[in-house]
């Protein structure tokens, strides 16, 4: 237990901050995922064949390729791509992107593909009459989307979104390969310097279990809140 002391002697404080980092990356990735989902869900539902195939390509490729490979693509390719764009504007120095941003972005793209599928399914299972009624009653676009469609969509989407959250939370462990100090990376460092990998990796497993357990409790509450009217 001495290994978990806070301060210089133990790894308690390091692991605590690493846990906060995992939470921060997961939330950022989830939000980036929502942005991607907001962009690609309309494409997947569009009648235009070209737009539709772009939406399908996104979800098929991301869900069919290992997360680790996507992370490597952005880890090794990310700064290259940005430097290429910068060189067009005449900036030729080396640019290193923040590990946090690369990590959240790559996990965000992955979680976005899952969110897109969830939103598509939720939108498709809303009764068609709701769309028609809202249009017939002449609501403006803002009320149409935010007050009528979105609440109904959220009710159907939240149970599946909590699954996406679980996947995203667990996927953040893969960012450790890029050197971002989250739970996995911190355990790796601690295990290396104390030569006690069994303890630290088991402790990491406990931390992840705690995170999944607590977030499930919160999400279940959200679920009951949104299904109040039913």
């Amino acid at each position, binding site marked *: 237990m001495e290994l978990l002391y806070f301060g210089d002697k133990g790894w308690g404080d390091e692991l605590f901050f690493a846990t906060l980092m995992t939470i921060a990356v997961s939330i950022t990735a989830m939000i980036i995922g929502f942005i991607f989902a907001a962009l690609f869900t309309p494409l997947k539902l569009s009648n235009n064949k070209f737009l539709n195939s772009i939406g399908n390509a996104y979800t*098929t*490729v991301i*869900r*069919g*390729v*290992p*997360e*680790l*490979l996507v992370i*490597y*693509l952005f*880890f*090794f*390719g990310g700064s*290259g791509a940005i430097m290429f764009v910068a060189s067009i504007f005449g900036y030729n120095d080396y640019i290193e992107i923040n590990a946090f941003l690369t990590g959240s972005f790559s996990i965000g793209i992955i979680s976005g593909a899952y969110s897109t599928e969830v939103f598509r399914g939720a939108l498709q299972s809303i009764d068609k009459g709701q769309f028609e009624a809202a249009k017939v009653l002449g609501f403006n676009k803002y009320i149409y989307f935010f007050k009528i469609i979105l609440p109904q969509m959220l009710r159907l989407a939240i149970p599946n979104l909590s699954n996406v959250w*679980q996947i995203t939370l*667990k*996927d953040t*462990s*893969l960012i*450790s*390969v890029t050197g971002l100090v989250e739970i*996995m990376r911190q*355990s*790796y460092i601690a*295990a290396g310097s104390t*030569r*006690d*990998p*069994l303890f630290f*990796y*088991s402790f*990491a*497993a406990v931390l*992840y*279990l705690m995170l*999944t*357990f607590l977030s499930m409790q919160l999400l279940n509450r959200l679920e009951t809140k949104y299904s109040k009217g039913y």
Partner: protein
Amino acid sequence: MDIELMISSFPKLLNATLITLKLLSASLILGLFIGLGFAILRMNNNKLINKFAYGYSYIFRGTPLLVQIFIIYFGLGQIEYLRTTFLWVVLKEPYWCAIIAFSLNTGAYTSEILRSAFQTIKPGYLEAGRSLGIPSKIIFKKIQIPIAIKQSLPAYGNEIILMLKGTSLASTVTLMDLTGVAKYIISTTFKPVEVFIVAGGIYLFMTFIIHNVIKYLEKKYGFQT
């Protein structure tokens, strides 16, 4: 776009795909047995056994696969006692550690899939079988198993694809699977996009095949219940 690199790296990546497929098939077969075992335990009426099986699947589904591999590969070697037993022959090889971790992980998911499949079988079928005097072993083999296969196929197909992606984590314990070789080529040539296209293409091709095999099986087992 460096087409030459894409062509020259293709055979290397294809070779590494063999290891990916070996890992996948070994862990799926072992995982199916583990899953079936725990699904049967989950349906046991004894509360303690039930809780144990639930705890197993909860822990393995609630933690990242990476942690599980690291505990087995780096962690278990630390126990002095294990080093003296025959288990050490298995546990010192990253290949077997990866297979153990993958099997335990997919076993947890499979047990949930099978449990829900067994539980959705209408009791009427079993009662009908029993009242016809069919022995319970044959009821299990000829009634419960085919219906459970039909019910669990879509979810199990997803699990196979998730596991295919999961095998990429073998590269973190020094195994040169498809992702491991892809990473090696990327880090020596610094051409991530080209390698991603080739390696991703191979993964997508495998997902495509799995998807279609499952679709075919779904049709085959698509009898009305």
